[in-house]
């Protein structure tokens, strides 16, 4: 990496770069040394950037035609679907784009969990990521309210009512959030404003996320620190650009299938019924990407504790770098952690399924066990595992692990066993 010695070849370029080093930045981004063994799970960072930009561009276009008023919102969405040129396309991209965004972010998060990308020295990248994820959930929730269908209205009612669980000031806070004594026009207009604002906050945080990433550089499937640049790295352009591009295209094929052939399958039918405060839907269900947390919320019998459990389930991720005591990053070299990792994945999927089911009988029981296990994983299993687990020797360089060479591996084994003797 030659960040500091970069000089533009043209005179004009040099003049400009001395005053605003944009060309140095561009040079840094293209030359950025990236581990050469990154697998396809690493392409979701680029895919997420694409998702964010798609949501912002389609969202801006929709905002030109949408009317944030309780009496007109539903109708204006139908106006977009029927009369605006390609309005149906823009709206379906935006609505399904939210689902694709969450699909990608969950893969991105679980990749981090598998390869230990949250560990030192990448804690700040991880924490910024968690804040982005929280903002994404807020943006998605408020966006779902805007069409002012039945699920919009009742989802907003249920979620905002959670704040009433706060002792003493809860009721006051809810009234303040609503801008009145029920979810109504003032709620809709403020949700629209915030839904418009949050993506730009996310955009800013994404810049910080990438900036923080470019300090230590990417983690990699082997999870070892590497020298940069070296035989273990490739420049970001063209190697990673083309690989991310290929993965993005595959992702877009799935995306296009939803937009063009099943645009409503991920939504709820009730949201095509205009909001009616006098009629409560049979089941109030959030969008699929919020279901695991919804299951945690409902599995606690007490309202306040349920809210606390739901929030903790997300916030616990922020302290993950300190809960995981293992020095080894990649699960590839952690045989026990690897198994617990897949159990956690299954646990979250089960929670998601239970979140869509009525909270009663066996469903509720399973949800409670799964909730307990979720916290057990982070609060007990991870800290203990770091001390108890016997890990597999880690190779010294990526080249070694890629080429399957043995000399250094043998050296590493020797070193590790000698360390153990000490």
């Amino acid at each position, binding site marked *: 990496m030659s960040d500091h010695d970069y000089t533009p070849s043209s005179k004009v370029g040099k003049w400009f770069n001395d005053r605003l080093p944009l060309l140095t930045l561009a040079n840094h981004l293209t030359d950025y040394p990236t581990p*050469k063994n990154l697998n396809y799970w690493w392409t979701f960072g680029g895919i997420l950037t694409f998702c964010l930009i798609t949501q912002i561009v389609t969202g801006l276009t929709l905002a030109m035609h949408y009317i944030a008023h309780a009496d007109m919102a539903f109708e204006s969405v139908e106006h977009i679907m029927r009369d605006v040129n390609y309005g149906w396309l823009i709206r379906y991209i935006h609505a399904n784009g939210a689902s694709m965004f969450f699909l990608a972010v969950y893969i991105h998060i679980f990749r981090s969990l598998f390869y230990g990308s949250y560990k030192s020295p990448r804690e700040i990248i991880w924490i910024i990521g968690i804040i982005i994820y929280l903002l994404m959930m807020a943006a998605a929730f408020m966006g779902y309210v805007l069409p002012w269908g039945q699920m919009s209205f009742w989802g907003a009612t249920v979620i905002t009512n959670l704040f009433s669980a706060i002792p003493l000031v809860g009721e006051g806070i809810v009234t303040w959030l609503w801008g009145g004594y029920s979810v109504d026009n003032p709620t809709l207009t403020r949700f629209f404003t915030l839904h418009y604002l949050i993506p730009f906050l996310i955009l800013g945080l994404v810049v910080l996320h990438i900036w923080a990433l470019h300090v230590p550089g990417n983690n990699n499937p082997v999870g070892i620190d590497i020298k940069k640049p070296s035989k273990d790295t490739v420049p970001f352009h063209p190697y990673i650009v083309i*690989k991310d591009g290929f993965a993005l295209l595959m992702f877009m094929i799935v995306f296009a299938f939803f937009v063009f052939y099943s645009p409503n399958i991920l939504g709820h*039918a009730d949201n095509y019924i205009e909001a009616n405060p006098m009629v409560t839907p049979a089941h109030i269900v959030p969008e699929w990407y919020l279901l695991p947390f919804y299951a945690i919320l409902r599995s606690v019998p007490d309202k306040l504790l349920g809210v606390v459990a739901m929030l903790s389930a997300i916030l616990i991720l922020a302290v993950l770098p300190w809960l995981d005591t293992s020095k080894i990053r990649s699960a590839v070299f952690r045989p026990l952690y690897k198994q617990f990792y897949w159990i956690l994945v299954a646990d979250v999927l089960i929670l998601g399924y239970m979140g869509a089911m009525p909270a009663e009988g066996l469903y509720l029981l399973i949800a409670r066990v799964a909730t307990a296990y979720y916290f057990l994983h982070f609060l007990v299993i991870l800290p203990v595992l770091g001390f108890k687990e016997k890990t597999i020797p880690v190779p010294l360089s990526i080249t070694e692990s890629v080429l399957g060479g043995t000399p250094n591996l043998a050296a590493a084994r020797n070193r590790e066993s000698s360390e153990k003797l000490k």
Partner: protein
Amino acid sequence: MKNLIKLFYIISFIFLATVHSQSAEKVDYLKTDWSFKGLFGKFDRGSLQRGYQVYTEVCAACHSMKYLSYRNLAEKGGPEFSIIQAKAIAASFEVVDGPNADGEMFTRPAKLSDKFVMPYENEKAAQAANGGAYPPDMSVLVKARGGGVDYIYSLLQGYEDAPSGVTLDEGVHYNKYMYGNKIKMSAPLSDGIIEYGDGTVASVEQMSKDVTTFLMWAAEPHLEARHRMGFKAIVYLIILTVLVYFSMKKIWSRVESEV
């Protein structure tokens, strides 16, 4: 490539799980072959025109369709009545307009640009005339019901005598596809209730299919354009993906690593 397979496996698994979870309460709806499903799905023009006839002669007595305009009837991808036919249809309805130069409201025949005339002044009037139950607006009805077209198609044919043990209140009917089986709407269709202009026999099954097709178009007027564009977009993406794949292979052949 092994990783890619895993990737696709995970994606499909998650979405299948979601879809399955959202269709938990499964009912076996009546099946028929809808021409608008599938990669190249298009509406059957004749069915749409007949469906409009069923809507306007039967359903429209109680159900509004407030997001549609008469011009939609002549638009591409819909029933595609000729402009003259659509104008004639519009002119058969009276709308209130105004105020005129004297400040008075007046009625005039509807034009292509007018929205479908509603059977009742407002929701309350509709409820009052229908024993307290509001006949839902039909503009997006197909998308507002869990089973979609299959549900509507089945519901229209699902009227039966109540099984023993089920007591029905005055003005309530038994329908085996209705949520909770009790419905305020009496069976709207019966064989030969209307006479199709094109000579098709107006059986309950035929009318159910036609009117459901019409409702699908009403809810998704750009469905044909969407399918056409979708096919092109996906073919384009696949070709581009293949090209990028080989470029990637070429570029990465310079390093000792696998892609």
